[in-house]
């Protein structure tokens, strides 16, 4: 089997097919998030959208940077930056497994000719205080997708929960094209000339250069300084948001003695508060931590502590975000009584989850 079998999908066709598949099933097609993240989960389209009661369906490609995984472009199976196709379905449809399998059909995999298994794999992200249960989906012995039912995110119990499908795009492309090295994957093929551009042509240089930077060159002192600056600003924002809450009792509790206008005003102040930028600052910290870690600059004693610092930011933002969503919902409906169904949803969310 030659690496450039004409019928196998190129890397970009693979992405297009999967996007088209999920778009046809009602997903918003988002673009990759433009702040460095270690996984598609960290993009706000997942981390924040899975919080709170609002249903949502989204699919996006997310380049995911893991400085310590860099191999200077020398290892055929490992990358500093790999690409995930991330799908979030909130709440998960009952036929979600069937839908997922159908998506494999959409990229030309005839499941009748292959061996597919759902093997237990539970996901946990300590820096996000998030976890879920699920499987790694194995296709002929290759892990092609992480399939996770989120249970907690930012330290909060989720209701409704979301399902997260994370397709490993390079692996799947290498499988489809039957190549042994990621760098041999055909990224694009000119439909007129047949000229092929390989993954290596597109990405090898940044694998090499970022490996050099992350392992050898990154300025440790400055990276620490960046970390501290981002962290400080994020903390300040969270404090300011917290102070808003103190001045204005929760809208959902319908503060007594306050006029409707006061409440509306408070809700407006909250909903324009820049929590999304605060989350960007948190992501910056996370990425800087990864660089410092790859650089071997985080000492034994520091490591756990630094992870806890990033987690504190993420958890703080998650809590604030949920609160912000609530006040927005309340502001929109300030004149009319909340529908009973929403009330119930809120109540259930707050009730402790039995173990």
């Amino acid at each position: 089997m030659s690496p450039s079998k004409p019928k196998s999908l190129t890397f970009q066709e693979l992405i297009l097919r999967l996007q088209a598949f999920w778009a046809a099933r009602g997903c918003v097609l988002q673009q990759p998030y433009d702040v460095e993240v270690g996984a598609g989960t960290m993009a706000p389209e997942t981390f924040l959208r899975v919080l709170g009661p609002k249903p949502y369906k989204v699919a996006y490609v997310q380049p995911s940077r893991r400085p310590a995984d860099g191999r200077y472009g020398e290892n055929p199976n490992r990358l500093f930056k790999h690409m995930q196709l991330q799908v979030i379905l909130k709440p998960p449809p009952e036929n979600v497994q069937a839908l997922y399998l159908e998506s494999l059909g959409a990229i030309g995999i005839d499941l009748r000719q292959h061996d597919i298994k759902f093997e237990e794999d539970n996901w946990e992200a300590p820096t996000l205080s998030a976890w879920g249960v699920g499987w790694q989906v194995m296709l002929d012995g290759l892990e092609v997708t992480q399939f996770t039912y989120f249970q907690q995110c930012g330290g909060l119990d989720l209701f409704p929960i979301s399902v997260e499908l994370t397709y490993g795009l390079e692996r799947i492309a290498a499988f489809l094209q039957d190549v042994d090295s990621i760098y041999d994957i055909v990224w694009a093929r000119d439909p007129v000339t047949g000229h092929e551009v390989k993954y290596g042509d597109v990405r090898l240089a940044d694998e090499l250069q970022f490996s050099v930077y992350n392992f050898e060159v990154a300025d440790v002192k400055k990276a620490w300084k960046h970390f501290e600056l981002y962290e400080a600003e994020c903390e300040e924002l969270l404090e300011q948001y917290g102070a808003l809450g103190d001045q204005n009792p929760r809208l959902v509790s319908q503060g007594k003695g306050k006029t409707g206008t006061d409440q509306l005003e408070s809700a407006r102040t909250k909903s324009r508060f820049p929590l999304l930028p605060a989350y960007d600052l948190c992501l910056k910290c996370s990425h800087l931590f990864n660089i410092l870690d790859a650089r071997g600059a985080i000492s034994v004693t520091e490591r756990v502590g630094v992870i806890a610092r990033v987690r504190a930011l993420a958890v703080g933002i998650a809590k604030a975000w949920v609160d912000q969503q609530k006040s927005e919902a309340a502001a929109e409906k300030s004149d009319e009584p909340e529908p009973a169904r929403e009330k119930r949803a809120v109540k259930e969310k707050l009730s402790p989850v039995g173990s």
Partner: protein
Amino acid sequence: MPDFLLEIGCEEIPARMIDAAETDLGVRVAKLLLEQGLLPTKAIVPTMSTPRRLTVWANGIFSAQLDVTERLTGPSVTVAYKDGQPTPAAHAFAKKAGVDVSRLETVSTAKGEYLAAKVTRKGRRASEILAETLPKELSSIYWPKSMYWRKPHERFVRPVRWLVAMLDEETIPLEFDGIWAGKTSHGHRMLFDGDVAIPRAGSAYVDALRAAKVLGRGEREQQIRKALDAATRRIPGARWREDRSLLDTVVNLTEFPSVILGDFDPRFLALPEEVLVTVMRDHQKYFAVDDADGKLLAHFLAVLNTDGDREGLIRHGNERVLRARFSDARFFWETDQKRSLLERLELLRHVTFQKDLGNYYEKTRRVQRLCSWLSEIIKQSGMAVRAGVVHKAACLAKTDLTTELVKEFTELQGIVGGLYARVQELDSTLPEATRFAIADAIYDHYKPESTEDGVPRSMEASVLSIGDKADTIAGMFSLGLVPSGSKDPFALRRQANGIVKVIAERKLPLRLGDLMRDARAGYQGSDAEKKFVDEVKFSESVTTFFRERVEFYLKDVRGHAYDVVKAVLAADADDVVDALARAEAVKQVLHMPEFLAIGAACKRMRNILRQAEEKGIASGVTFHALPDSAPEEKNLAGYIDVNGPRVEALRKKKEYGDALMLLATAREPVDAFFDKVMVMVEDEKVRANRLALLRTLLKEFSTIADFSEIVTEGKA
């Protein structure tokens, strides 16, 4: 007598959880049917499981409970009637019993005449009972980790997607986690299209599933074994490597299994077999293939969840994945050689051992010191141990934690260090045999990793194994991180079990208390020490902990009876080898009538002494013959004077069997004493003297085992 069937259709249940859940479901349903009067006698109900379903059925259950007639007793007649007329009390009782007042009866009891009513409770229909009670049982199935997907309080291992619940051809109107039961099941994901209609409960269920390409556990295992055999036969002389836990895993990952034989590039065989097998088994769930001499061949066997691989695509795909995995392993192996283990020692400063206990470099130094000390003790007892080998192995034991290979395959820690130590000429001044001994000690030092796992092959590795684990346990306990219930994140119980096992099987002269004290001393002067609990608290918690571990070893690993173990450990639980020897000796004499009598006597002595103490009654220190001492009393004292030192001498020589045989002769004087002599007499002097005698005697008896712990009921 309808047949009952229940199938819970679920998204893929983790393989490791299926067997236990299937059993749990069976036990719960059998109990329920019995309690509800739907099964005549206690029975084991058949069950079945696949990754996507748990099923239980019971043929010929009662279609309804029997009607129950009982007599209710009401108020007394004097209260129930006034002037011949029923009072409100009588009316209330009649209402409660559901009969008219005129139909009430009277019964005579010892307390007088009372009202009574005969009430028949109609037995409920099975379908109704099951619909009502089964959901609770389903939600009570134990899962090591569960989830919610619809409502937070509805928890199961993975989302439940369908339910089949039937009595013969009828659906049981059952709801669980938002799913209503029906008669429709589902077949194999890929090999069968559409729903599977279950015509009726009973054998029709299994037949319907088989037609839909879903097999029960037993059938799957058989099919896999056959297919493994058949595939292996294609290579003359080859055998697949039996692996029970891998087989259990793949059985529970498939609904309709088949097997493919794949190849890999024989050049990968240059990598150590341990690495290759770990990649295949743990990461790919492949079976390894050996030649007739047990040497690894360049083939693998993969178990598929489908009926075959006609195009060869599946084989091709699996070979591709394995090639990438092996290439990675080879890449790691080669990269790792760029730095020797010796050079890696410094790197251990950057590897956390535990956040409060510092890094692995510090641990290495502590373990080295502790191991030197242990080697010394062992040597002094006349056993052979090469202290230099232990010392060097301890120095390098953890260095493999910095290697790429161990970062990738953590389960190979120790093993990789051992392999690298063999290939790297770490110290050319040492003879090869010594170098290999060091390498093997590193290789083995995590052993035993489970109750079934063997102890390290050499004395040197055994010392290192104990030293490493003791250091961890001492550190954690000093921080107050004591395992409790299911919480044991550092697997301290397993490590302590390992220590006990190695000491017992290598017959090492190490006392657990001393070991832990020495291990804790290793932390002196470190930062960690500031967070330590005090010595007394440490010693108490670690003593209790190890006592349980020794108890576990004697009972569960060595098979000693519970009471024997308790009796033996009451005398001393610090010296494992000695406790084991005493347990063996006690076991030998336990059946003798003398010891049943002595056990009873010991209980009696203990009670008398305890009561005396509680009442604040003084006891003498030693027995002195008084003018009015009873002859039995003097006789017993004389017996102790003569035999006490003899027992002690035998005990010192650890000839416990002989010591116990000698103790057996105490039965006569002891029985005579208790027959004739009263201990708690009025005369203070006599009483104190007799209490002193009992104390001495009990002490003599209890040096080998506390016989008052021996359970005598049913034996005497």
